[in-house]
């Protein structure tokens, strides 16, 4: 029963994503799933640890380029490419993390942005002989079909991405409910208090940083497989705020915020870009509106209302039931 209570929210969320796949175009569904995986790391850093990062595209690019290099120069198996993306993302996060997590939140945001800019120029100019500069790496036709789920086939890739997304969410839900999740929240609320209890804030932050950015690298590797090419545009400084926008749009620190935010953002991008040339302007206005409305984002606003509605209904049913029994 407890397990059911633990799982039902996740199962429902991903069931809705499956339903979405039936009614909406496949590219949209794939984009939403990958984008939500991309955002959950940022959401965890901001909502749980209190770190705002404008450099998430850096880690996305690390995952994507690691997979891209493998597909271009070494092999063609999408599964291996994804694993390489994750491992390289983990290593990069582990290398830069000890330096970055010592910084206070505002400097942390900027140093990550600087890393994104560095990687952008590395891929675009410095390493152009092997990255093909702005043209990027193209390997779509090199990818070999895989057994069970053929990742070179977009509809089967969606099932794979959905499973990966579900596993990622289950992992973050576990983190949220664990004592480590409480430690992260403690570090965000008041790091001194956590130190009084005997915790090393540095280790807590570093672990969160590595987990979040390895997840982002995973999203990068998924993009690399799904799109069949990687270009420096993935880490363009102009895209640096995307995950932060989606995090705030969905609801900072909420488990389902990244999914809701990714649906809303991708949806608006698709719909508005057909109507308006400067669709990003509308996103800007929407963000201002959300901030003024209470900073909770879409899911952050909806969740308590849904709970209230659900529990009120459950409570009235219980009351009705007991009345009936009394009668």
């Amino acid at each position: 029963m407890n397990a059911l209570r633990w799982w039902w929210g996740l199962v429902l969320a991903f069931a809705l994503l499956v339903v979405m796949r039936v009614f909406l175009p496949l590219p949209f569904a794939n984009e939403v799933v990958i984008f939500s995986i991309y955002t959950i790391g940022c959401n965890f850093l901001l909502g749980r640890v209190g770190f705002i990062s404008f450099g998430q595209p850096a880690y996305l690019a690390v995952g994507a380029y690691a997979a891209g290099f493998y597909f271009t120069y070494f092999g063609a198996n999408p599964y291996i490419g994804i694993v390489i993306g994750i491992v390289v993302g983990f290593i990069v996060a582990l290398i830069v993390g000890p330096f970055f997590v010592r910084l206070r939140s505002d400097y942390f945001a900027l140093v990550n942005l600087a890393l994104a800019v560095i990687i952008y120029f590395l891929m675009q100019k410095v390493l152009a002989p092997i990255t093909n500069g702005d043209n990027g790496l193209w390997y779509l036709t090199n990818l070999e079909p895989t057994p069970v789920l053929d990742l070179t086939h977009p509809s089967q890739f969606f099932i794979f991405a959905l499973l990966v997304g579900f596993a990622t969410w289950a992992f973050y839900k576990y983190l949220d409910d664990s004592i480590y999740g409480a430690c992260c929240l403690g570090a965000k609320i008041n790091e001194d208090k956590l130190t009084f209890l005997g915790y090393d804030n540095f280790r807590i932050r570093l672990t969160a940083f590595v987990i979040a950015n390895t997840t982002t690298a995973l999203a990068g590797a998924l993009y690399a497989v799904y799109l069949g090419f990687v270009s420096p545009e993935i880490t363009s400084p102009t895209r640096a705020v995307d995950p932060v926008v989606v995090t705030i749009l969905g609801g900072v620190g909420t488990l389902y915020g990244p999914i809701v935010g990714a649906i809303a953002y991708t949806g608006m991008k698709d719909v508005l870009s057909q109507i308006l040339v400067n669709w990003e302007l509308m996103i800007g206005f929407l963000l201002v509106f959300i901030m003024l409305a209470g900073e909770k984002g879409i899911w952050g606003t909806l969740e308590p209302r849904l709970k209230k509605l659900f529990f009120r209904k459950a409570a009235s049913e219980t009351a009705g039931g007991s009345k009936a029994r009394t009668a």
Partner: protein
Amino acid sequence: MSANGDILTVNQLNVAYGEAKVLFDVDVHVRPNEIVACVGRNGAGKTTLLKSIAGFLKPASGAIMTGSTSLVGLTAFVIAGMGIKYVPQDKRVFSDLTVRENLELGSYASGDYDWDKVTTYFPKLKQLMDRKAGFLSGGERQMLMIGRAILGGPKLLLVDEPTEGLAPSIVSHLKDVFVELAKKSALVIVEQNLPLVCAIADRVYALNEGRIMAELIGREAIRPEACEKYL
């Protein structure tokens, strides 16, 4: 324990915030199962003394020893791990976490999940387990903070102004708890409530403008009017 039997020895401690010197050649001794009180007016350096012992401030000079181990230069979480727990003054708990989660944080750090000793001292916490700590009263927060600190059986508790702003009934309850706690740990309490500390302390240090003005030992010597004389 050191040769002189102290659980904590502070020797010739000088602490400064930048250019401003706050503590001048402070000497403090704490023996096992002793309640030591530091009294003094606002700005006397009481909290600075506790924070220096707990590892939050780096002394300019002097020694802080527990047994034969020097605490100077150790980080605060290492000192907490050695069983020297600081309970800060501001009563700010992790407000978004429940009482249970707050206690779990204390347990996980110390490896001690025996919450009975916490609820024995503070039975009220039992009913508040699922309440977010942000919705506790000042007294309940203080109970939670002390409760969290005693998990793991610390050898020394550093308690900063525990009764500030609390109702007399809760102050009286805390007084009894401190006496009980002293049977297992030593306590250093920083307090402005002279009648309270004089009722429970075995040793009192009177601080004024960063200097120890007097060290009072024994029931006879520790009286509010005697402390007042040095402040």
